[in-house]
């Protein structure tokens, strides 16, 4: 058995320390060590996007990042989207547009959407489709997802919503 390493990171706004083995992926650490099972494993080889998280604000497949790599860094998962104000506007938009069925790809798509809207507040449909091409959804056919992303962009453009969301 390999020895474990202590990793300190900021996860969903909280400073946490956890013990992981050097070969464990960030996805395993989130799900199996920290109990954050909202992030999903669909393929474990970077092809489905279900495990998408933000690492220092950048969109990554957490199955392709080692747990030890997040030392001193910031991770945002689906559990970090809602806050004391309630659901994040992106989450509200996905419910309102009925942009999910089984919901398994949804956490990754919400995170990918946040990564997009954080840097491009008003993306075109083509841009949204290109950005989300790394997140597979088998249920919806994507159209409602594209609609929800546009709706989320409009919500975030409302005065008062742009702060810390």
């Amino acid at each position, binding site marked *: 058995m390999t020895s474990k390493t202590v990793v300190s990171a900021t996860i969903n706004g909280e400073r946490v320390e956890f013990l992981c083995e050097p070969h464990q992926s960030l996805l395993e650490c989130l*799900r199996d060590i920290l109990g954050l099972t909202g992030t*999903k494993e669909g393929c474990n080889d970077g092809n489905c996007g279900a495990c998408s998280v933000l690492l220092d604000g950048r969109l990554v497949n957490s199955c392709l990042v080692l747990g030890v790599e997040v030392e001193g860094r910031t991770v945002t998962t689906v559990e970090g989207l809602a806050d004391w104000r309630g659901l994040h506007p992106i989450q509200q938009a996905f419910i309102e547009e*009925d942009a*999910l069925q*089984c919901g398994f790809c949804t*956490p990754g798509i919400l995170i990918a959407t946040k990564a997009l809207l954080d840097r491009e507040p008003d993306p075109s449909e083509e841009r949204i489709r*290109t950005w989300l091409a790394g997140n*597979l959804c088998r249920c919806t056919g994507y159209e409602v997802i594209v609609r929800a992303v546009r709706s989320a962009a409009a919500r975030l453009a409302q005065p008062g919503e742009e702060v810390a969301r």
Partner: protein
Amino acid sequence: MSAKRHATQPFHVVGTRPPRYDGADKVTGRALYGPDISLPGLLHGKVLRSPHAHARILSIDTSRAEALPGVYGVVTAQDLPETEDQTARDHVLASDKALYVGHSIAAVAASTLHIAEQAAQIIEVEYEVLPAVVDVMEAIKDSAPLLHETMKTRSLAGESQTPSNIASHLQHVKGDPAKGFAEAADDGVIVEREFRTAMAHQGYIEPHAATAEWSTDGHLTVYTTTQGTFSIRGHLAELLNLRLSQVRVVPTEVGGAFGGKNDGYIDVATALLARKTGQPVKIVMTRAEVFLATGPAPGAFIRVKMGATHDGRITAAQAELYYEAGAYPGAFVGAAANVIFGPYDIPHGQIDGYDVVVNKPKTATYRAPCAPPVCFAAEQVIDELAEKIGLDPLEFRIRNCAKEGTRQVNGSAHTDIGCYEVLKAARGHPHYSAPLEGPHRGRGVAQTYWGNWGAQSSCTVSVNADGTVSLITGSVDLSGTRTSLAMQAAEVLGLTLEQVKPSVGDTDSVGYADTSAGSRTTVATGIAVARAAQDVIAQMSARAALLWDVPADTVAFHQGAFTAGQDADKRFSFAELAARLSETGGPVTGVGNVDVREWGASFGTHIVDVEVDPETGQVTILRYTAVQDVGKAIHPGHVEGQMVGGVVQGIGLALYEGYVYDQEGQLLNPTLLDYKLPTALDAPPVETVIVEVPYPKHPFGARGVGETPIVPPPAAIANAIYRAVGVRMDQIPMTPARILKKMGVI
């Protein structure tokens, strides 16, 4: 068309678009799916799988694996009791032969997944590798290696003399096909073509997962992602030799299924490991295991011959269907035979269907099982007939469409169908008459139907003191049925949707339900829900009668209120009466149990415009319209979701998806990189047209919706490709390379 039509009724909940019940948990990450289950002391399991497509298992030595630190137990087929169904037993853990790459041989439980994986690799299995057969048309030859040495072909005539890879042969004959074809030969045209389709996967993003634990008195609990808790319970009880009441199956949220999560693949091994180790065990499949060792949809070889007269009347149709069942018999060839000519009124016909075993995983259902291949075949032949006769393809289909009472080639008669209505709606749709200009562009159409399974469902509705109700069914919610069932209860009870709390019970806490499949849940479980709600009204009416001291049959329930005659004092709202249950005899629980034997049908017509790049063979979908008879849309948003999602899966089958095997039976594309599902960039916007021809056996007229829309896309796209570049595609997926080959470019 049909005289039996419901008058349009005003509904207060049915037909609206409320947010889905499961939405909040799914967008916050709180919803628990199969792989999310954890229990104290949990061990992790890993299955060792055959690297060979066909091999005799000479010996299995687990001693090195068992000695590895952190390993708690190893199981093989030796740990299973003898059972009547040897096939089911061999399917979950192979005993004497491995029949496909990925066949389960043994399973290990360890303290971590990494140790379990390491241990599985050091189990020593000695194989005698046998010749494999992976192609359905090779497998039917007399010279082919036999998967099951004693299996003979079953048919109406009895059993074949000699063993064969053909497990069964079904035959439907209607009228006199020879006469029908002679008529077409005299005064019309005959088209005969052959088609091939590939094995394809349901492609759900959530892998299979099961977690098992035993109580010390021999009761087993399994938490699993499944379409049918009761069928998994039966499977576990049978293979572990337990009473049904000893097994409790708890459903998790299901991260996509589409027919692929009806059968159990790892549940039995998980339970065996948990029993052997005395600790809870979880097994989660990897993506490669999902591709290799679950139940994909079978590929097929199909030969279709049809004849029509010059005035546009189909005179005869004939088909031979060879479906690859995989390692064990059981492809849904009967369903293919129902669908192939189902939308048409055909006087003379014959269908021969063959269920053929090959060295690939045992196939299972996938959304309208076995239907897309036959639709791809028959709808292209119909298109060609229309072209040769000189008729518009939709006009030709309308002239020959199935109507009330039309007897199908399979012998059954259509009743209460909307076949003509969807064709008419498609012909009148602006898409069909819109100009389509530019080179290498073409428009195609295709027609199909899918029968809705009925089967067994149950429901309880308990009344709470504040006038809300709790609705429990055993029907697993795959895509929104908690909401659509709650809407039906609210409609009957005159409540708002917020006043109905739906949930899915485990097998210990709710009455039996068949698996959520066959487009049945909103319809058949909906009937059970309506009955349970009616039962609540009957029981509460009796309570009102008691309080008012009037005969029970004088109490009426209308628009959410109980009344007796014209007396204005004798009026209770649902909530007012619910508050008085404790003083009138106690709790009220309504029950609905149904076994729905009728099969409804949902017809669909699709129109697609494509552009083919003549240099690369790339197909771009320019516009897509799906028309479907849904009976009555309980939740139109969910209906549209099913239609669009189904179409995009059908586009995947048409253009991208297919298992690629080599001669030795090795799967060459078991990843989501090489087995390509449609992405947001590939999927076009899909316009949906809901047609409502009410189904008279459902209280609100609903038909099952989910399966029909996956069926027409490969055929419609093939017909559009023909009009774009003049080649008839005979194989799906219609990859750029195949299109360029047909065009003579490569």
